[in-house]
């Protein structure tokens, strides 16, 4: 349960690391929007390639990203593909038959319905984990604040990212305190049993966190938070040429996918 593993920022000096977080957020949302409205499998593939290029440009070391990749590949790709296959075999839809064995029928429709959502998930996962891996968590709130999100909502995100590692540490402390009193968590190397040992921590960690809310609020009020209508951010973000290029690219992608959406809708 090392806390550094969960806020997954990896330091680096690649192009993607140096981009403005605002440009990256706009890019991720443009890919997300295009994925949501894209009507066919052929149109997903360019997005998958773009997001993979975006990942490759970040030059992330495989050693540090391997746990996330395992999760994405095992849970997202393999499990959801199996689930979708079972679902589409259970609820038949028709289509051309490829393989038939008494009641067991596979059609091209079934394969397409199993692959299509997985492609979407994979493409989205690649873009989002690149954003998470290359953006320091302390920059999300200034980025949102300088995108003209009011500063109070932006500060909620700042607080959340500030306290996630704190609570993961708190979980470990609570577990150790319980072990010192004779509680024995099950399972040595079994990862599932390790996670099950977190369930008894929900109540103590939540209560201690909820009790600290008023202290944090008092400390912020004493420093004058919320008194003024305007709020400046310590880190000033500036767009450079690459950021503007990425934003133009995002707008371009969104426009193409909106056009293709209407094209497919009204022609087919």
């Amino acid at each position, binding site marked *: 349960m090392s806390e550094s593993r*969960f*806020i*997954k920022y990896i330091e680096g000096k690649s192009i993607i690391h140096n981009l403005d977080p605002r440009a990256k957020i706009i890019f991720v949302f443009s890919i*997300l929007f295009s994925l*949501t409205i894209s009507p066919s499998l052929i149109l997903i593939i360019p997005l998958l390639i773009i997001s993979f290029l975006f990942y490759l440009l970040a030059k992330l070391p495989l050693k540090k990203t391997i746990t*996330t990749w395992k*999760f*994405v590949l095992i*849970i*997202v790709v393999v499990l*959801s593909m199996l*689930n*979708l296959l*079972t*679902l589409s075999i259970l*609820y038949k*839809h028709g289509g051309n038959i490829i393989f038939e064995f008494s009641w067991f029928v596979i059609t091209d429709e079934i394969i397409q*319905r199993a692959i299509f*959502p997985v492609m979407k998930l994979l493409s*989205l*996962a*690649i*873009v*989002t*984990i690149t*954003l*998470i891996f290359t953006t320091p968590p302390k920059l999300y709130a200034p980025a949102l604040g300088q995108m003209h999100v009011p500063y*109070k909502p932006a*500060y*909620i*995100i*700042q*607080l*959340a*990212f*500030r*306290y*996630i590692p*704190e*609570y*993961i540490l708190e979980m470990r402390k609570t577990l150790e305190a319980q072990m010192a009193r004779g509680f024995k968590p099950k399972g040595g190397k079994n990862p*599932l049993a390790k*996670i099950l040992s*977190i369930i008894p921590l*929900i*109540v103590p960690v*939540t*209560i201690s*966190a*909820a*009790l*600290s*809310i*008023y202290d*944090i*609020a008092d400390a*912020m*009020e004493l420093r004058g*938070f*919320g008194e003024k209508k305007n709020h400046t951010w310590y880190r000033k973000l500036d767009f450079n040429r690459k950021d503007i290029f990425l934003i133009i690219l995002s707008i371009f992608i969104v426009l193409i996918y909106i056009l293709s959406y209407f094209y497919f809708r009204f022609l087919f």
Partner: protein
Amino acid sequence: MSGKREFLSVTSIVAMGIGTALYAAFNVFFNIFQLPGTQLVALRPSVAIPMFFGFVFGPIVGFVAGFLGNIISDAISWGGFWWNWDVGNGLLGLIPGLTIFLIKKEEMSTSKGLILCSILSIIASIIGMGFAAYTDYIFGYGISTIEEATYALFLPAAITDAVNGAIITPILVAAYSAAVKGRARRA
């Protein structure tokens, strides 16, 4: 304090931030418990956290804790983003918060309040997960028949969340009210 400042007071901003952080921190672990035969539905005892924040700090705090907490935990565990599931998780926190319109604040930690909390958690699971599952069907995100939406998304998600929420949320509320007893300003 005037009525307008109550809406986004410093306390409620901090409560939203802390609730988001807690929900995200626990969900990162529980996202591994994918239920077999469903489409990315995980078994999460942590659903009690937004319900508890909604019940104690009000519906908007509960909504934000569920909504942002789910976005952040999905993004850092496998990079997903589904707005309708995030809104569904927000509803898990919003509906227990409606208790402020039903009973007095002093009654929240009595057995009447705890039973109401349990019932509201079950209603919240049904409405929140129902919203998420059937918007998946309406917009066609991966599934395309109403039976799939019911059996692969709605029933597993709503039943596990209702069981976890109905048991753990009242425990949290009772423990919190016992912990704040005697402290000034905290209730």
